[in-house]
Protein backbone atom coordinates (compact mmCIF):
# COMPACT_ATOMS: atom_id res chain seq x y z
CA UNK A 1 0.00 0.00 0.00
CA UNK A 2 2.65 2.46 1.08
CA UNK A 3 4.98 1.15 -1.62
CA UNK A 4 2.31 1.80 -4.17
CA UNK A 5 1.86 5.33 -2.84
CA UNK A 6 5.57 6.09 -3.10
CA UNK A 7 5.90 4.52 -6.53
CA UNK A 8 3.07 6.67 -7.83
CA UNK A 9 3.02 9.92 -5.90
CA UNK A 10 6.58 10.34 -4.65
CA UNK A 11 8.61 8.56 -7.27
CA UNK A 12 12.15 9.88 -6.85
CA UNK A 13 13.28 8.60 -10.20
CA UNK A 14 10.68 10.54 -12.13
CA UNK A 15 11.18 13.52 -9.86
CA UNK A 16 14.85 13.57 -10.76
CA UNK A 17 13.99 13.48 -14.43
CA UNK A 18 11.41 16.23 -14.46
CA UNK A 19 12.57 18.69 -11.84
CA UNK A 20 14.15 21.09 -14.37
CA UNK A 21 10.74 21.32 -16.02
CA UNK A 22 9.08 22.08 -12.69
CA UNK A 23 11.66 24.72 -11.82
CA UNK A 24 11.09 26.44 -15.12
CA UNK A 25 7.35 26.33 -14.49
CA UNK A 26 7.83 27.79 -11.04
CA UNK A 27 9.88 30.59 -12.55
CA UNK A 28 7.09 31.47 -14.98
CA UNK A 29 4.48 31.36 -12.21
CA UNK A 30 6.62 33.77 -10.20
CA UNK A 31 7.14 36.12 -13.14
CA UNK A 32 3.45 36.08 -14.00
CA UNK A 33 2.57 36.95 -10.39
CA UNK A 34 5.20 39.68 -10.20
CA UNK A 35 3.94 41.32 -13.39
CA UNK A 36 0.20 40.98 -12.82
CA UNK A 37 0.07 41.85 -9.10
CA UNK A 38 1.47 45.43 -9.24
CA UNK A 39 -0.47 46.23 -12.41
CA UNK A 40 -3.75 45.03 -10.90
CA UNK A 41 -3.12 46.95 -7.66
CA UNK A 42 -2.30 50.12 -9.62
CA UNK A 43 -5.43 49.77 -11.75
CA UNK A 44 -7.61 49.18 -8.68
CA UNK A 45 -6.06 52.14 -6.90
CA UNK A 46 -6.71 54.37 -9.90
CA UNK A 47 -10.38 53.31 -9.97
CA UNK A 48 -10.79 53.96 -6.25
CA UNK A 49 -9.12 57.37 -6.42
CA UNK A 50 -11.31 58.40 -9.33
CA UNK A 51 -14.31 57.23 -7.31
CA UNK A 52 -13.28 59.30 -4.32
CA UNK A 53 -13.95 62.56 -6.16
CA UNK A 54 -17.66 61.65 -6.05
CA UNK A 55 -18.56 62.70 -9.55
CA UNK A 56 -22.00 61.17 -9.94
CA UNK A 57 -21.85 59.94 -13.54
CA UNK A 58 -18.25 58.78 -13.27
CA UNK A 59 -19.04 56.85 -10.10
CA UNK A 60 -21.94 55.05 -11.73
CA UNK A 61 -19.64 54.00 -14.57
CA UNK A 62 -16.94 52.88 -12.12
CA UNK A 63 -19.37 50.80 -10.09
CA UNK A 64 -20.61 49.07 -13.24
CA UNK A 65 -16.99 48.39 -14.23
CA UNK A 66 -16.18 46.97 -10.80
CA UNK A 67 -19.23 44.73 -10.61
CA UNK A 68 -18.84 43.59 -14.21
CA UNK A 69 -15.31 42.36 -13.73
CA UNK A 70 -16.07 40.92 -10.32
CA UNK A 71 -18.86 38.90 -11.94
CA UNK A 72 -16.78 37.45 -14.78
CA UNK A 73 -15.01 34.22 -13.93
CA UNK A 74 -11.41 35.07 -14.73
CA UNK A 75 -11.10 31.98 -16.91
CA UNK A 76 -13.98 33.17 -19.11
CA UNK A 77 -12.16 36.47 -19.48
CA UNK A 78 -8.94 34.70 -20.37
CA UNK A 79 -10.63 32.51 -23.00
CA UNK A 80 -12.37 35.55 -24.48
CA UNK A 81 -9.07 37.38 -24.74
CA UNK A 82 -7.01 34.47 -25.97
CA UNK A 83 -9.45 32.78 -28.37
CA UNK A 84 -11.98 35.54 -29.02
CA UNK A 85 -9.88 38.62 -29.74
CA UNK A 86 -7.86 37.14 -32.64
CA UNK A 87 -11.06 37.29 -34.71
CA UNK A 88 -10.71 41.08 -34.48
CA UNK A 89 -7.09 40.85 -35.50
CA UNK A 90 -5.79 41.28 -31.94
CA UNK A 91 -3.51 38.35 -31.27
CA UNK A 92 -1.99 38.20 -27.80
CA UNK A 93 0.50 35.62 -26.66
CA UNK A 94 -0.53 33.38 -23.78
CA UNK A 95 1.56 35.34 -21.28
CA UNK A 96 0.14 38.71 -22.32
CA UNK A 97 -3.39 37.31 -22.41
CA UNK A 98 -3.00 35.85 -18.92
CA UNK A 99 -1.65 39.15 -17.56
CA UNK A 100 -4.48 41.11 -19.18
CA UNK A 101 -7.18 38.75 -17.85
CA UNK A 102 -5.71 38.77 -14.33
CA UNK A 103 -5.33 42.54 -14.30
CA UNK A 104 -8.84 43.27 -15.62
CA UNK A 105 -10.46 40.83 -13.21
CA UNK A 106 -8.47 41.94 -10.19
CA UNK A 107 -8.69 45.65 -10.95
CA UNK A 108 -12.38 45.17 -10.15
CA UNK A 109 -11.60 43.45 -6.85
CA UNK A 110 -8.85 45.86 -5.82
CA UNK A 111 -10.98 48.79 -6.98
CA UNK A 112 -13.80 47.72 -4.68
CA UNK A 113 -11.44 47.12 -1.75
CA UNK A 114 -9.64 50.47 -2.04
CA UNK A 115 -12.97 52.21 -2.64
CA UNK A 116 -14.45 50.80 0.56
CA UNK A 117 -11.29 51.79 2.42
CA UNK A 118 -11.32 55.36 1.15
CA UNK A 119 -15.04 55.70 1.92
CA UNK A 120 -14.37 54.55 5.47
CA UNK A 121 -11.95 57.43 6.09
CA UNK A 122 -13.94 60.33 7.54
CA UNK A 123 -14.52 63.11 5.01
CA UNK A 124 -13.14 65.67 7.42
CA UNK A 125 -9.67 64.23 6.86
CA UNK A 126 -9.65 65.33 3.25
CA UNK A 127 -11.34 68.62 4.02
CA UNK A 128 -8.79 69.38 6.71
CA UNK A 129 -5.94 68.53 4.35
CA UNK A 130 -7.38 70.77 1.64
CA UNK A 131 -7.97 73.62 4.06
CA UNK A 132 -4.35 73.36 5.17
CA UNK A 133 -3.42 74.12 1.58
CA UNK A 134 -2.56 70.65 0.31
CA UNK A 135 -3.39 70.11 -3.32
CA UNK A 136 -6.15 67.51 -3.95
CA UNK A 137 -3.67 64.93 -5.27
CA UNK A 138 -1.49 65.29 -2.17
CA UNK A 139 -4.52 65.15 0.08
CA UNK A 140 -5.40 61.79 -1.44
CA UNK A 141 -1.92 60.28 -1.44
CA UNK A 142 -0.57 61.66 1.84
CA UNK A 143 -3.67 61.84 4.05
CA UNK A 144 -6.51 59.65 2.82
CA UNK A 145 -4.77 56.63 1.26
CA UNK A 146 -2.44 55.74 4.14
CA UNK A 147 -5.45 55.55 6.46
CA UNK A 148 -7.59 53.75 3.89
CA UNK A 149 -4.98 51.07 3.27
CA UNK A 150 -4.70 50.36 6.99
CA UNK A 151 -8.44 49.79 7.15
CA UNK A 152 -8.52 47.33 4.27
CA UNK A 153 -5.19 45.58 4.80
CA UNK A 154 -6.91 42.22 5.41
CA UNK A 155 -8.94 42.09 2.17
CA UNK A 156 -5.91 43.44 0.29
CA UNK A 157 -3.80 40.55 1.50
CA UNK A 158 -6.60 38.08 0.78
CA UNK A 159 -6.99 39.28 -2.76
CA UNK A 160 -3.27 39.29 -3.46
CA UNK A 161 -3.05 35.67 -2.36
CA UNK A 162 -6.01 34.84 -4.59
CA UNK A 163 -4.34 36.54 -7.55
CA UNK A 164 -1.19 34.49 -7.11
CA UNK A 165 -3.27 31.32 -6.89
CA UNK A 166 -5.22 32.28 -9.99
CA UNK A 167 -2.08 32.46 -12.13
CA UNK A 168 -2.49 28.68 -12.50
CA UNK A 169 -5.32 29.20 -15.00
CA UNK A 170 -2.72 30.35 -17.51
CA UNK A 171 -2.00 26.64 -17.92
CA UNK A 172 -5.29 26.41 -19.85
CA UNK A 173 -3.94 28.66 -22.61
CA UNK A 174 -0.77 26.58 -22.86
CA UNK A 175 1.49 28.86 -20.85
CA UNK A 176 4.05 26.48 -19.32
CA UNK A 177 3.76 27.72 -15.75
CA UNK A 178 4.03 25.37 -12.78
CA UNK A 179 0.75 23.47 -13.20
CA UNK A 180 1.11 23.10 -16.96
CA UNK A 181 4.71 21.94 -16.61
CA UNK A 182 3.58 19.35 -14.09
CA UNK A 183 0.91 18.06 -16.47
CA UNK A 184 3.42 17.84 -19.31
CA UNK A 185 5.86 16.05 -17.05
CA UNK A 186 3.12 13.68 -15.94
CA UNK A 187 2.43 12.71 -19.52
CA UNK A 188 6.13 12.09 -20.07
CA UNK A 189 6.53 9.88 -17.02
CA UNK A 190 3.11 8.15 -16.86
CA UNK A 191 3.14 8.91 -13.21
CA UNK A 192 1.40 11.54 -11.05
CA UNK A 193 4.54 12.40 -9.07
CA UNK A 194 5.02 15.69 -10.97
CA UNK A 195 1.47 16.76 -10.07
CA UNK A 196 2.07 15.85 -6.46
CA UNK A 197 5.32 17.84 -6.57
CA UNK A 198 3.58 20.87 -8.07
CA UNK A 199 0.86 20.72 -5.41
CA UNK A 200 3.50 20.49 -2.69
CA UNK A 201 5.42 23.44 -4.15
CA UNK A 202 2.26 25.55 -4.31
CA UNK A 203 1.40 24.58 -0.75
CA UNK A 204 4.83 25.29 0.68
CA UNK A 205 5.02 28.69 -1.01
CA UNK A 206 1.45 29.83 -0.34
CA UNK A 207 0.82 28.35 3.09
CA UNK A 208 2.62 31.10 5.05
CA UNK A 209 0.67 33.69 3.07
CA UNK A 210 -2.59 31.87 3.76
CA UNK A 211 -1.85 31.84 7.50
CA UNK A 212 -1.02 35.53 7.47
CA UNK A 213 -4.24 36.32 5.61
CA UNK A 214 -6.31 34.28 8.06
CA UNK A 215 -4.71 36.10 10.99
CA UNK A 216 -5.44 39.50 9.47
CA UNK A 217 -9.04 38.53 8.75
CA UNK A 218 -9.60 37.25 12.26
CA UNK A 219 -8.16 40.43 13.73
CA UNK A 220 -10.39 42.57 11.54
CA UNK A 221 -13.45 40.55 12.48
CA UNK A 222 -12.63 40.79 16.19
CA UNK A 223 -12.12 44.55 16.07
CA UNK A 224 -15.28 45.14 14.05
CA UNK A 225 -17.21 43.05 16.58
CA UNK A 226 -15.71 45.07 19.41
CA UNK A 227 -16.82 48.25 17.67
CA UNK A 228 -20.33 46.89 17.24
CA UNK A 229 -20.56 45.93 20.90
CA UNK A 230 -19.25 49.31 22.01
CA UNK A 231 -21.79 51.04 19.82
CA UNK A 232 -24.55 48.90 21.30
CA UNK A 233 -23.34 49.50 24.84
CA UNK A 234 -23.21 53.24 24.33
CA UNK A 235 -26.78 53.37 23.18
Amino acid at each position, binding site marked *: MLDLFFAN*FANLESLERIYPLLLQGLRLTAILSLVALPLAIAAGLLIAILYSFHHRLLNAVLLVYIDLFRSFPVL*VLLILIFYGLP*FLGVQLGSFAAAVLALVLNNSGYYGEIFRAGIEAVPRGQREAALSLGLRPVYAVFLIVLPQAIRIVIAPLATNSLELIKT*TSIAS*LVALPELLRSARVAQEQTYNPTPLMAAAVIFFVLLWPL*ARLVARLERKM*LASSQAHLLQARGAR
Partner: protein
Amino acid sequence: MHAIVENYFNLDVLGRYYPSILAGYVVTVEVALLTIALGVGIGLTLAILRCLRLRVLNAIIVIYVDVFRSLPQLVVIVFVYFALPYAGVSLSPFAATVLSLAAVLSAFATEAFWAAILALPQGQWDAARSLGLGFLGTLFLVVLPQAVRIAIPLLANRAISITKGTALGTAVSLPEVLGQAESVMAIAANPSPLTLAAALYLCFFVPLVVASRWLEQRQGFAR
Protein backbone atom coordinates in the same frame (compact mmCIF):
# COMPACT_ATOMS: atom_id res chain seq x y z
CA MET B 1 -18.48 47.61 -36.50
CA HIS B 2 -19.66 45.06 -39.02
CA ALA B 3 -16.77 42.78 -38.09
CA ILE B 4 -17.80 42.96 -34.43
CA VAL B 5 -21.40 41.96 -35.11
CA GLU B 6 -20.30 39.28 -37.55
CA ASN B 7 -17.81 37.76 -35.12
CA TYR B 8 -19.26 38.24 -31.67
CA PHE B 9 -23.03 38.55 -32.13
CA ASN B 10 -23.58 36.27 -35.09
CA LEU B 11 -27.24 35.24 -34.75
CA ASP B 12 -26.86 32.58 -37.43
CA VAL B 13 -24.20 30.77 -35.46
CA LEU B 14 -26.02 31.29 -32.18
CA GLY B 15 -29.28 30.01 -33.64
CA ARG B 16 -27.60 26.84 -34.76
CA TYR B 17 -25.63 26.06 -31.63
CA TYR B 18 -27.49 27.54 -28.68
CA PRO B 19 -28.99 24.22 -27.45
CA SER B 20 -25.60 22.72 -26.61
CA ILE B 21 -24.54 25.94 -24.90
CA LEU B 22 -27.71 26.02 -22.82
CA ALA B 23 -27.15 22.37 -21.90
CA GLY B 24 -23.72 23.45 -20.70
CA TYR B 25 -25.29 26.23 -18.68
CA VAL B 26 -27.46 23.70 -16.85
CA VAL B 27 -24.32 21.79 -15.88
CA THR B 28 -22.68 25.04 -14.71
CA VAL B 29 -25.64 25.93 -12.50
CA GLU B 30 -25.79 22.40 -11.08
CA VAL B 31 -22.10 22.43 -10.22
CA ALA B 32 -22.40 25.90 -8.70
CA LEU B 33 -25.37 25.06 -6.47
CA LEU B 34 -23.94 21.71 -5.36
CA THR B 35 -20.62 23.37 -4.57
CA ILE B 36 -22.26 25.99 -2.36
CA ALA B 37 -24.49 23.48 -0.55
CA LEU B 38 -21.71 20.97 0.05
CA GLY B 39 -19.03 23.54 0.82
CA VAL B 40 -21.03 25.55 3.32
CA GLY B 41 -22.49 22.40 4.88
CA ILE B 42 -19.11 20.77 5.41
CA GLY B 43 -17.64 24.07 6.60
CA LEU B 44 -20.33 24.54 9.25
CA THR B 45 -19.94 20.93 10.39
CA LEU B 46 -16.18 21.26 10.75
CA ALA B 47 -16.52 24.55 12.65
CA ILE B 48 -18.96 22.89 15.08
CA LEU B 49 -16.58 19.97 15.50
CA ARG B 50 -13.81 22.44 16.37
CA CYS B 51 -15.94 23.74 19.23
CA LEU B 52 -15.59 20.33 20.90
CA ARG B 53 -11.90 21.22 21.34
CA LEU B 54 -10.60 17.69 20.87
CA ARG B 55 -6.91 18.02 20.22
CA VAL B 56 -6.40 15.38 17.52
CA LEU B 57 -9.58 16.29 15.69
CA ASN B 58 -8.62 19.97 15.76
CA ALA B 59 -5.21 19.23 14.30
CA ILE B 60 -6.79 17.28 11.44
CA ILE B 61 -9.28 20.05 10.73
CA VAL B 62 -6.57 22.72 10.79
CA ILE B 63 -4.45 20.74 8.32
CA TYR B 64 -7.45 20.20 6.06
CA VAL B 65 -8.34 23.89 6.13
CA ASP B 66 -4.77 25.03 5.51
CA VAL B 67 -4.21 22.67 2.60
CA PHE B 68 -7.35 23.65 0.73
CA ARG B 69 -6.98 27.31 1.58
CA SER B 70 -3.46 27.43 0.17
CA LEU B 71 -3.84 25.41 -3.02
CA PRO B 72 -5.20 27.04 -6.19
CA GLN B 73 -8.61 25.61 -7.14
CA LEU B 74 -7.38 24.49 -10.53
CA VAL B 75 -4.51 22.57 -8.95
CA VAL B 76 -6.99 20.73 -6.73
CA ILE B 77 -9.29 19.90 -9.65
CA VAL B 78 -6.45 18.72 -11.89
CA PHE B 79 -4.96 16.69 -9.06
CA VAL B 80 -8.25 15.01 -8.17
CA TYR B 81 -9.01 14.17 -11.78
CA PHE B 82 -5.59 13.22 -13.13
CA ALA B 83 -3.67 11.96 -10.11
CA LEU B 84 -6.20 10.26 -7.83
CA PRO B 85 -6.95 7.49 -10.37
CA TYR B 86 -3.44 6.19 -9.65
CA ALA B 87 -4.60 5.70 -6.07
CA GLY B 88 -7.63 3.78 -7.30
CA VAL B 89 -10.08 6.70 -7.03
CA SER B 90 -11.57 7.50 -10.42
CA LEU B 91 -14.10 10.31 -10.49
CA SER B 92 -16.19 11.69 -13.32
CA PRO B 93 -15.38 15.26 -14.42
CA PHE B 94 -18.60 16.38 -12.72
CA ALA B 95 -17.80 14.72 -9.41
CA ALA B 96 -14.17 15.82 -9.54
CA THR B 97 -15.12 19.47 -10.12
CA VAL B 98 -17.86 19.56 -7.48
CA LEU B 99 -15.80 17.78 -4.83
CA SER B 100 -12.70 19.90 -5.47
CA LEU B 101 -14.57 23.21 -5.37
CA ALA B 102 -16.60 22.09 -2.35
CA ALA B 103 -13.40 21.12 -0.54
CA VAL B 104 -11.91 24.57 -1.20
CA LEU B 105 -15.11 26.37 -0.20
CA SER B 106 -15.52 24.24 2.93
CA ALA B 107 -12.02 25.21 4.05
CA PHE B 108 -12.85 28.90 3.80
CA ALA B 109 -16.30 28.35 5.32
CA THR B 110 -14.81 26.51 8.30
CA GLU B 111 -12.42 29.39 8.81
CA ALA B 112 -15.19 31.99 8.51
CA PHE B 113 -17.57 30.20 10.92
CA TRP B 114 -14.79 29.47 13.38
CA ALA B 115 -13.53 33.06 13.28
CA ALA B 116 -17.10 34.24 13.87
CA ILE B 117 -17.50 31.88 16.83
CA LEU B 118 -14.24 33.16 18.30
CA ALA B 119 -15.31 36.75 17.73
CA LEU B 120 -18.29 36.27 20.04
CA PRO B 121 -17.49 37.43 23.55
CA GLN B 122 -16.83 34.64 26.05
CA GLY B 123 -19.64 36.16 28.13
CA GLN B 124 -22.18 34.70 25.71
CA TRP B 125 -21.00 31.18 26.57
CA ASP B 126 -20.76 31.93 30.28
CA ALA B 127 -24.19 33.52 30.45
CA ALA B 128 -25.88 30.67 28.58
CA ARG B 129 -24.14 28.05 30.72
CA SER B 130 -24.99 29.83 33.95
CA LEU B 131 -28.64 29.93 32.86
CA GLY B 132 -28.52 26.16 32.82
CA LEU B 133 -28.15 25.45 29.10
CA GLY B 134 -25.95 22.48 28.28
CA PHE B 135 -23.00 22.62 25.92
CA LEU B 136 -25.03 21.71 22.86
CA GLY B 137 -27.89 24.01 23.83
CA THR B 138 -25.46 26.88 24.24
CA LEU B 139 -23.80 26.12 20.96
CA PHE B 140 -26.91 25.71 18.84
CA LEU B 141 -29.29 28.18 20.51
CA VAL B 142 -26.97 30.99 21.57
CA VAL B 143 -23.61 30.90 19.83
CA LEU B 144 -24.31 29.63 16.33
CA PRO B 145 -27.25 31.92 15.49
CA GLN B 146 -25.05 34.93 16.22
CA ALA B 147 -21.91 33.48 14.68
CA VAL B 148 -23.62 32.58 11.42
CA ARG B 149 -24.81 36.15 11.08
CA ILE B 150 -21.32 37.47 11.63
CA ALA B 151 -19.87 34.97 9.16
CA ILE B 152 -22.27 35.67 6.30
CA PRO B 153 -20.56 38.73 4.77
CA LEU B 154 -17.18 36.99 4.99
CA LEU B 155 -18.66 33.89 3.46
CA ALA B 156 -20.78 35.47 0.72
CA ASN B 157 -17.80 36.86 -1.18
CA ARG B 158 -15.91 33.62 -0.83
CA ALA B 159 -18.81 31.50 -1.96
CA ILE B 160 -19.25 33.67 -5.05
CA SER B 161 -15.58 33.69 -6.00
CA ILE B 162 -15.23 29.94 -5.53
CA THR B 163 -18.45 29.21 -7.39
CA LYS B 164 -17.00 31.11 -10.32
CA GLY B 165 -14.48 28.29 -10.40
CA THR B 166 -17.07 26.10 -12.14
CA ALA B 167 -15.49 27.39 -15.36
CA LEU B 168 -12.33 25.55 -14.31
CA GLY B 169 -14.19 22.29 -14.98
CA THR B 170 -13.21 22.75 -18.64
CA ALA B 171 -9.72 21.67 -17.63
CA VAL B 172 -11.07 18.17 -16.93
CA SER B 173 -13.46 18.29 -19.93
CA LEU B 174 -16.57 18.91 -17.87
CA PRO B 175 -19.21 19.87 -20.46
CA GLU B 176 -20.13 23.12 -18.71
CA VAL B 177 -21.01 26.30 -20.54
CA LEU B 178 -17.50 27.62 -21.17
CA GLY B 179 -16.23 24.30 -22.47
CA GLN B 180 -19.29 23.86 -24.68
CA ALA B 181 -18.87 27.35 -26.06
CA GLU B 182 -15.20 26.70 -26.77
CA SER B 183 -15.86 23.51 -28.71
CA VAL B 184 -18.72 25.09 -30.63
CA MET B 185 -16.48 28.04 -31.40
CA ALA B 186 -13.95 25.66 -32.90
CA ILE B 187 -16.61 24.01 -35.08
CA ALA B 188 -18.23 27.24 -36.23
CA ALA B 189 -14.95 29.17 -36.56
CA ASN B 190 -16.74 32.06 -34.89
CA PRO B 191 -16.48 33.31 -31.30
CA SER B 192 -20.16 34.29 -30.88
CA PRO B 193 -20.76 31.23 -28.65
CA LEU B 194 -18.18 32.67 -26.26
CA THR B 195 -20.15 35.90 -26.08
CA LEU B 196 -23.27 33.92 -25.20
CA ALA B 197 -21.40 31.92 -22.56
CA ALA B 198 -20.00 35.11 -21.06
CA ALA B 199 -23.48 36.67 -21.01
CA LEU B 200 -24.90 33.58 -19.29
CA TYR B 201 -22.19 33.77 -16.65
CA LEU B 202 -23.04 37.41 -16.04
CA CYS B 203 -26.74 36.49 -15.67
CA PHE B 204 -25.79 34.17 -12.84
CA PHE B 205 -23.16 36.23 -11.06
CA VAL B 206 -24.12 39.90 -11.42
CA PRO B 207 -27.16 39.45 -9.11
CA LEU B 208 -24.96 37.63 -6.59
CA VAL B 209 -22.26 40.29 -6.67
CA VAL B 210 -24.80 43.10 -6.30
CA ALA B 211 -26.52 41.21 -3.47
CA SER B 212 -23.23 40.74 -1.63
CA ARG B 213 -22.50 44.46 -1.94
CA TRP B 214 -25.91 45.19 -0.42
CA LEU B 215 -25.29 42.65 2.34
CA GLU B 216 -21.99 44.27 3.27
CA GLN B 217 -23.45 47.75 3.37
CA ARG B 218 -26.32 46.57 5.55
CA GLN B 219 -23.87 45.01 7.96
CA GLY B 220 -21.86 48.19 8.04
CA PHE B 221 -18.65 46.36 7.25
CA ALA B 222 -15.68 48.49 6.29
CA ARG B 223 -14.55 46.32 3.42
